[in-house]
């Protein structure tokens, strides 16, 4: 009796998880299929779309890599991401430390205030920002993205880092000061090395969040060679108004999977910061 019930429960569990995993991953599976199917196979409505009815091909990949700006998009994305990471670290680390350590009750309130600015949606900001960008001559420039992306990375990363810094015992810093460091020195030489996992988290998030960004990139960049992957792929791999499905799917796949893998490792920390410490 008990045994059967146990097996049934186990079976139920696997069924539920499989359904959800399938649901989550299906579009990506579909990208894989499309990436390696010949156009003829892809565009025959009678063919079973789940199978390779004709031998697999690398044509789409070749087209994507050598005949489109895909690699340029990747490079642009990397440039923007790296620059945003640097700016975010430079601003969020001192701010978070200051809020976590030195600010009393107003620190907490200010921290929450900064976090809330993360929730001000791009859809409100992009109209004024687009005007600023054009007035500063930054239209069609990656610099506009580099300048604007920290609007979502700084609030979020500051908040997240604040939590990390708070976990470093105050004693250790004070000890470092007694041991011969200045207040600033204690932060740089003791607190930062102890928060290395937090800093790494920030780097990963700042980078992945910029890779995910869509609205600003769409608004500010329309020249093909300046695009990032998240807009380049959906807007450029179209011939006339016909989608080049094979290369399009290949591009989406190549750009998403690495980000997804890295992101997954840091997901729990992301959520902890996200829920404002409501969840430990």
């Amino acid at each position, binding site marked *: 009796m008990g045994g059967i019930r146990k097996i049934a429960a186990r079976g139920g569990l696997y069924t539920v998880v499989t359904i959800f995993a399938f649901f989550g991953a299906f579009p990506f599976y579909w990208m894989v299929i499309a990436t390696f199917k010949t156009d003829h196979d892809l565009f025959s409505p009678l063919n079973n779309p789940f199978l390779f009815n004709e031998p697999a091909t690398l044509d789409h990949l070749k087209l994507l890599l050598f005949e489109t700006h895909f690699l340029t998009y990747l490079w642009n994305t990397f440039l923007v991401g790296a620059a945003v990471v640097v700016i975010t670290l430079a601003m969020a680390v001192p701010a978070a430390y200051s809020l976590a350590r030195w600010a009393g009750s107003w620190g907490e309130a200010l921290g929450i205030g900064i976090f809330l600015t993360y929730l001000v949606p791009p859809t409100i900001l992009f109209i004024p920002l687009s005007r600023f960008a054009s007035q500063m001559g930054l239209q069609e420039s990656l610099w506009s993205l580099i300048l604007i992306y920290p609007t979502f990375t700084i609030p979020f990363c500051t908040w997240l880092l604040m939590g990390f810094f708070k976990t470093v015992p105050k004693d250790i810093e004070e000890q470092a000061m*007694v*041991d011969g460091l200045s207040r600033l020195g204690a932060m740089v*030489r003791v607190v930062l090395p102890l928060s290395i996992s937090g800093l790494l988290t920030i780097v990963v998030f700042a980078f992945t969040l910029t890779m995910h960004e869509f609205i600003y990139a769409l608004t500010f960049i329309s020249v093909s060679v300046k695009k990032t992957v998240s807009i380049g792929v959906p807007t450029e791999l179209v011939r006339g108004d016909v989608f080049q499905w094979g290369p399009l799917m290949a591009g989406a796949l190549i750009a998403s999977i690495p980000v997804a893998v890295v992101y997954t490792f840091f997901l729990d920390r992301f959520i902890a910061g996200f829920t404002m410490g409501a969840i430990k």
Partner: protein
Amino acid sequence: MAQVEVRGISKHFGEVRAVDHVDIATAEGEFLVLLGPSGCGKTTLLRMIAGIETPTSGDILIGGQVVNNLPPRARKIAMVFQSYALYPHMTVFRNIAFPLKAQGFPREEIPTKVEWAASTFGIEKLLHRKPRELSGGERQRVALARAVVREPSVFLLDEPLSNLDAKLRTSARDELQQFQRRIGTTTIYVTHDQVEAMGLGDRIVVMKGGKVRQIGTPQEVYNEPSDTFVAGFLGSPPMNLLEREDYIAGFRPEKFLPVSVYDTGEPLVKLWLVVHRVEHLGADRLLYGIMRDTFPNEKVIVNIPSTVDLKIKTGEAQEFAVKEKDIKFFDRSTGLRIEPRRFWGTR
């Protein structure tokens, strides 16, 4: 080596006066203990001396120099925190070397110094370990080694033994004192444990509510408490305090013994005590009772050493006595010590 002096020092956190106008001066090479219940301001005082906390008012002098405006690193002090505050990402070696490096000590001399400090506390074998791989006692030694390595002129210790288990604490206390005697560095030691304070201190500063209640040698603060707080805080069980209409009389439980124990001609004060309960603690017996006739509302504790082999019956009045000179008198309203007077209530 240096003297430490604080003059009229105060620290207010908002409305709270954590330290309230305190004056203390150590002697050269002295082991000074700051003793008091939690929240009495002793740690805050220590932190101000270290430079981690800024005083609201008053001066701090180390070696005769006012250091109020100097950061901690410029005060030639070493501090051991209650948590030991070892750098978790560094090995024991790098922990001990840290103060040397931070001060720009010549690089090639560092290993010798570290080894010297480590050998002082017998932790040479642990140098390559990380703090999380150490036991509580080992961590404490590492913290001490890190404190002595650059030969500071003052040691500040904040309850360094409170994280050790009881057995280890006794031996660590002994080592600590021997070590301090050997190097003769002025040491200020914060604790809430009166046994530690009595055992370690050349002098004890008893604090309460941010104020100093008494400064004196362990014998002085124990035998001649300056007020009822000190009388009650030191000693376990604490001094018996009996309230009269115009004064409070106090005597130590171990000074109040059955009359038959006394054989001298010294003047005694005799009192009848009804014992309710007896606790056998091995070396001592504790008797809990009331003085039915004289002070019916006051509970009294008697501490009889096991060497006194006397039968004590519960529920019956028995005659106990205390030497007249062992009775201390305090003002009823202020709690402060007053001149000896005739103990009212003798029959």
